[in-house]
């Protein structure tokens, strides 16, 4: 049973992260490949704060969320100046920079060895130690995330963001503040990614740079593409499908070294196949 719970909790955390990526990449059209970096910052903040008993889980998660927000605003600021292809390269650089810091700042992040022994969340004195309990926590947070995403997208704000993706000049001609809309979308996406990171670290009780590298960012984009861009349903389906893959591979009797490689291979093939044959993903709109 724990096997399933673990799968669902991880998938839920990735859905929260997927919402963030979908908001930025799918809806506003800021093609960021550095969302895993923001995810990582959230994870390390909660890990460091709760390990030293500096803070308990709830305030640590709030701080992770706030830092994700601030960081994402900073990293997406170049997108307001450079557009399209140029921004992809900029955000690629930001992702590499983040990985370098995660790997080399040994005192803060434990370097390549990571940070083991992150305590389980403690919600106002109630320790969340079992996977079952964690499932409740992640489901509650994800529901809040989905509700926020849904409310924002059905409101004029969602329409404004879609309009910006289609034609920024026309939105400007209508007298709308583009800068504000983009920055606030980045902030919202950052808050989502930061809290997803915090959950991730406390759930696994261990974080290391490999979860937050460029591969992770690409995996996130694959989730959005496979699930479907710009829709809530798509953001939910993508992570559940893609995270099921390693579980399925685990059932097949192949050596672990090959399993890891074949997983990457399958992700790659899926990404290409969806782009070519079903750009709208399983439940989304064309990217």
């Amino acid at each position, binding site marked *: 049973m724990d096997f399933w719970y673990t799968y669902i909790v991880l998938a839920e955390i990735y859905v929260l992260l997927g919402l963030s990526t979908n908001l930025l990449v799918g809806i506003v059209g800021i093609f960021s490949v550095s969302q895993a970096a923001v995810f990582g910052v959230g994870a390390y903040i909660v890990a460091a704060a709760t390990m030293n008993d500096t803070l308990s889980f709830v305030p640590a998660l709030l701080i992770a969320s706030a830092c994700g927000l601030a960081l994402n605003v900073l990293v997406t600021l170049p997108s307001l100046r450079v557009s399209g292809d140029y921004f992809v390269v900029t955000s690629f650089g930001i992702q590499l920079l983040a990985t370098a810091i995660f790997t080399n700042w040994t005192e803060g992040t434990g370097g390549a060895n990571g940070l083991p022994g992150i305590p389980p969340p403690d919600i106002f004195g109630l320790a969340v130690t079992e996977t079952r309990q964690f499932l409740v926590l992640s489901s509650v947070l994800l529901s809040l995330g989905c509700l*926020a995403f849904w*409310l924002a997208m059905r*409101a*004029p704000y969602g*329409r404004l963001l879609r309009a910006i993706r289609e*034609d920024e000049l026309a939105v*400007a*001609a209508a007298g709308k503040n583009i800068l504000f809309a983009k920055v606030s*979308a980045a902030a919202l996406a950052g808050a989502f990614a930061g809290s997803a990171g915090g959950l991730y670290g406390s759930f696994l009780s261990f974080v290391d740079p490999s979860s937050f590298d460029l591969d992770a960012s690409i995996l996130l984009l694959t989730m959005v593409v496979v699930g479907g861009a710009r829709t809530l349903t798509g953001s939910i389906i993508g992570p559940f499908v893609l995270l099921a893959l390693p579980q399925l591979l685990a059932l097949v009797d192949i050596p672990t070294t090959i399993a890891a490689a074949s997983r990457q291979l399958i992700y790659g093939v899926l990404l290409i196949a969806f782009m070519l044959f079903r750009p709208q993903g399983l439940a989304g*709109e064309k990217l």
Partner: protein
Amino acid sequence: MSAYLAVSGVNKSFGGLQALHDTNFEITKGKITCLVGPNGAGKTTIFNVITGFLPPDTGGVTFQGRSLDGLTRQQIVHQGIARTFQNLRLFIDLTALDNVLAAIPGQAGETPWGAIFRPFHTAAVQTRMREQAREILDHVGLADRANDYVRNLSYGEQKLLCVARVLATGAELLLLDEPASGMSAGALDNIMALMRRLQTEGKTLLVVEHNTRVVQRIADEVLFLHQGHLMAQGTADEITSDPELAKIYFGGAI
């Protein structure tokens, strides 16, 4: 009394090309002014300068006695000037209604926190805004296309939607860039009637137009622009009957 909109001494160069050369003109409130001239005369550049899409090199624009110098595109719309684009620039993946809604100013729920923390207020205001957007669509004759995606509208309908979108901003001075180009005869009558109707409702229109028949039928005043400079100003008949201007227009004299 100062002019409603005054463009004074505007120069604008792109590299070696002088698009606007000491351009001066004024337009009167409540009138339909047509801006004519051969291709490359600087008509669209004038629109870009007035609406803040391009800063002039020298000179400036005043609207109702207030200078527009240094104002952002957004602030200029809030002053009451809105424009359409020659190449439409509609949001083709949104419905006609959403295109209009996207241009209505000051809606609740246009910020993430408004949308997330005040959902009921946002929804209530949206219901009102939708009503308002429907009225605007009805006004331009697109009421039955409200829920259709823009890509499914005909070219003529898309042009009407552009007018609906500038109306949604609530601006008083509408800058229309070739609203009648490429339209069939029937659609042409429609858009001319619409422009007249907007005028009777108190809007002032500055219209770039190539079709002399349209100009003759709608223009109260015509501005003739040539090589970025105002060559003549007068009624449609005065301008169209001037042989010198006709020569320039049809490419005779340089």
